[in-house]
C-alpha cells in the first residue's frame, strides 16, 4: 500500500447523494481477476452513454475540473461490498474522497487501498462544492497527520476524524494482514481455548 501523509490538489465536484458502488464500477466490469484496469471504467455509465459517447455534462469529463480529490454528496459508496469500487477510484487517480457521510464497507475498502475517505460536516461540504464550482482551479490541502482539510488562499478549514490505528497504517503504508499475522500465536491459543 502507498504511504499517505499530505496532498495539495485541485478537486473534482460530484454533487450527487447516495452514490452507490454500482455507479462507481458497474457489475459487468467485475469479471477481471486482478486489481488493475478498473480506473478506465470508473463511473462508466455516467461518463459515457451506451454507444460510448462522452457525456460532457458529467464533472469528470469537464476539462475545468481535475485533481486527485473527489468531492461527493452524502452517503458515498453505499450498496455492494465490491472493493473494485476503491480500485477503480484509485486507478483513475483519486487519493482522497470527501463527503459528509460514507457507507461502512466502502470506507473500510478505501482505507485498505490507501484511498482516504475524508468525512466533513454537511456545511463544509457545501462550502467545498460551491468553491470548486465557482473557482475550479482552487487547491485543496489535506494533511493526514494533523487531520486537517483546508481551502488554499482562504482561512477555511475543518478537522476530520480517523481511527488512530488506520491513520498509522495509511501514513506508513501498512496493511491489516501484517498486523494479523503478527498475532498468529494468540489466534491459535484462542482456537484451542474455545474447543
Amino acid at each position: 500500500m502507498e504511504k499517505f501523509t499530505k496532498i495539495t490538489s485541485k478537486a473534482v465536484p460530484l454533487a450527487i447523494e447516495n452514490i452507490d458502488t454500482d455507479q462507481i464500477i458497474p457489475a459487468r466490469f467485475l469479471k477481471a481477476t486482478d486489481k488493475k484496469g478498473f480506473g478506465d471504467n470508473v463511473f462508466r455509465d455516467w461518463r459515457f452513454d451506451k454507444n460510448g459517447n462522452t457525456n460532457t455534462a458529467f464533472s469528470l469529463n469537464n476539462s475545468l475540473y481535475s485533481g486527485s480529490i473527489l468531492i461527493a454528496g452524502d452517503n458515498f459508496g453505499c450498496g455492494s461490498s465490491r472493493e473494485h469500487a476503491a480500485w477503480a477510484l484509485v486507478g483513475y487517480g483519486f487519493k482522497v474522497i470527501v463527503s459528509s457521510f460514507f457507507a461502512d464497507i466502502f470506507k473500510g475498502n478505501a482505507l485498505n487501498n490507501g484511498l482516504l475517505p475524508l468525512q466533513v460536516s454537511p456545511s463544509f461540504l457545501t462550502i467545498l462544492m460551491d468553491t470548486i464550482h465557482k473557482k475550479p482551479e482552487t487547491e485543496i490541502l489535506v494533511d493526514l497527520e494533523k487531520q486537517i482539510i483546508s481551502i488554499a488562499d482562504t482561512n477555511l478549514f475543518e478537522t476530520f476524524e480517523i481511527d488512530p490505528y488506520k491513520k498509522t497504517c495509511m501514513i506508513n503504508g501498512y496493511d491489516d494482514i501484517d498486523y494479523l499475522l503478527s498475532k498468529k500465536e494468540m489466534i491459535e491459543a484462542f482456537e484451542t481455548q474455545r474447543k
Partner: protein
Amino acid sequence: MSKTLFDKIWDQHVVDTIKEGPQVLYIDKHLIHEVTSPQAFNELKERSIPIFRPNQIVATADHNTPTINQHLPIKDKLSKNQLEQLSKNCSDNNITLYELGHKYNGIVHVMAPELGITQPGMTMVCGDSHTSTHGAFGAIAFGIGTSQVAQVFASQCLLLKKPKSLRVTVNGKLKKGVLPKDVILYIISKLGTNSGTGYFCEYAGNVFENMSMEGRMTVCNMSIEMGARGGMIAPDETTFNYIKDRQFAPKGTDFDKKVAYWKTLPSDIDAVFDQEYIFDAEDIGPMVTYGTNPGMGIKITETIPKENNSSFKKSLEYMNFEAGSSLIDKQINYVFIGSCTNSRIEDFRVAANFIKGKQKAENVTAWLVPGSKQVEAQIIEEGLKEIFDNAGFELRQPGCSACLAMNDDKIPKGEYCVSTSNRNFEGRQGQGSRTILASPLVAAATAVEGKIIDITKQLN
C-alpha cells in the same frame, strides 16, 4: 451487565483489542464466490502466505454463472476464466467448492443456510454485502471487501471496531398479502438508506417471531440497504427446527448441546440498544419502489412523494416517473423472481399459488431463477414447475442472474422490471434498466397482468 444478542456473540469472538483501536475478531465461517475472491488468493500467493484455515471456508459459483444450459461450456471468456480460477484456487488450497452443476451449487446466501452451514452464535463473513442474510439465524454475519477476504484467508480474523447497536421492533398482525419483503421495504422506506450505517441491527417483535426462517432471511438480507452491515434475529424453536437434520448441522447429542447454548443467545430483557425504532405491523402494505435506491419505496396504494432535492429529481428522471403519481396500471414488460433476497422455495410457492390457473401476460418476459440446485429440485418435486410451465413462465437454473446482471440476464435500456431482488440502483439490472423492487406476490401478479395492480383489491 445486560447484553444484546450481538454483544454476546461478538464478545465471545474477540481475540485481542488494540489500545484505542480496533479489535481482532475471530471468524467461524468464511463463504467465498468467484467475483470477490481471486484478487485475495493472488495477494496471498504473491506474499507467500498460506491459507490459515481452509476447512472453515466454503465456496460456490453464483454471481457470474449462466441460468440456462449450465451443462454447456461458458461462452463469455472472462466469466469462464473467473470460474476456472475459483475452481483452481479451491483445489490448490483444499477448499470445499460447490461449482456450477454440483447438487449443492447456488447463491451463496441460499446455499449455506439450506445446508445447515449457517448456525446461531457464529461469526460469518463473505465478500458480498448481502451476507447479512445469515443473521436470520442469530449469527453475526456481514459483507467484507476483498482486502478483508485476504485477511481472513491469512488469519481467520478481521480487525474491526465494534459497531453500535440498533433494534427495529415490529409488533401486530400483518395484513393479507403483506410478505417479509414488504416488511423490510417498508422499514427501509421509513428509515432511509443510511440510518443503519455504523450499526448492527436486531429485528424484534412478534412479526419476526412468527416469521419462517426463509422470511427472516429476506428481512436480514436487506439490512445493508439501510446501511447496517448486518441484521439479526434471536434464534428460537423455528431456527432450531430449520437447522435440525440438515447436511452440515450438528447431529444427535451434539445438536442438543448446541441448542442449549443457542438458547442463551437472545438479548437480555433489559439490554440497552444505542438506537431503537418501533413500527406497527398494521401500517405495512404491499410495497413497490419508485426510485433508484431501496429507501425510495411506497405502499402500492400510495403515490410517489414530492421532494425538492436534486438527487431525488435525478432519480425520478432516470425512472421516468412523476412525483405525485401512482404506479398502479403502469405497464411492465419484465419480471424477475430470484436473488438472495427472494429465491427460496417459499417465494416460488407464493408465486405459483397466485399464478395457478392463470396465464402470463403476452407483453411480459418473466425470469424465475431459483436460488440453488436444491430449490430448483424442490420446485420440480412439488409440481410448481408444471404450474409455471402451464402459465407460460420459464424456470431457469440457479444463480444471482438479473439481480446484478453480470451474466446475460440483462433488462434492456429504458425497460421497467418488477424484481424481487434487493437493489434498484441505476443500471443495476442492465445499462439503462429501471428496477421496481417488490415481493414475489406483487411480481407474480405483475407478470400475469402485464402491469402493476393493486394486489390488495384482489386479496380482499
